[in-house]
């Protein structure tokens, strides 16, 4: 059984509390983690994250389910923030815990790769000159997601 926590929220998350909540599950030997944050760019002031309420949570559950089918995971945590975030603020937290490091780190990578392409979030950038634009999806994200399904032999 994989302990699952999924949250879409405006508030910041508490890395230490989320880690502590899963680290004490019996049988865990490794915990992988990824935190994405607003990266400074030329004249960028903030990002505004929009999502599709209802569908987002379903999509994140489906992604977590996929991960738990691929690796023996003790716990998965996905927290994604919405609303307006300034440079350096955290956007997303992914945690995956397993008996061994390979499963924990592979699942962490998988979860963030799939979240990028399969969870209905959109980012709008705002600049110091007052302008704004919607971030375009990157081909590399689609490739990273699809790479998980390339047969190895």
């Amino acid at each position, binding site marked *: 059984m994989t302990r699952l926590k999924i949250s879409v929220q405006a508030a910041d998350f508490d890395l230490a509390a989320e880690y502590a909540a899963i680290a004490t599950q019996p049988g865990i030997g490794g915990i992988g983690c990824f935190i*994405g944050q607003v990266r400074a760019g030329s004249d960028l002031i903030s990002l505004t*994250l*929009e*999502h*599709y309420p*209802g*569908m987002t949570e*379903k999509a994140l559950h489906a992604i977590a389910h996929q991960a738990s089918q691929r690796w023996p995971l003790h716990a998965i945590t996905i927290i*994604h923030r919405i609303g307006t975030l300034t440079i350096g603020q955290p*956007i*997303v937290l992914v945690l995956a815990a397993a008996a061994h490091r390979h499963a924990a780190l592979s699942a962490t990578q998988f979860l*963030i790769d799939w*979240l*990028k*392409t*399969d*969870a*209905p*979030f*959109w*980012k*709008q950038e705002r600049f110091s000159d007052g302008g704004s634009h*919607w*971030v*375009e*999806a990157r081909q590399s994200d689609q490739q990273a997601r699809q790479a998980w399904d390339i047969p190895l032999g």
Partner: protein
Amino acid sequence: MITVLYFAWVRDRVGTDAETLALPAGVTTLGALLTHLASLSPRHANALARPELLRAAVNQLFARPETPIAPGDEIAIFPPLTGG
């Protein structure tokens, strides 16, 4: 009746985030619905002009042009996803 939701720049261009409309006779797929929606107003036409830039969900599941739609469905139209 169906509900159509728009997100991100699709919403900005259409000018509304949601609308409820009757499903015209003969419109039974997502692809046909997109063509119908584009005929509703110049703003709709502009927002939906390039289907290759659009993605969609029917009842909160990702959908393709051939996905069937029926009265009562919730259809969402949006750009490619950019979360994380």
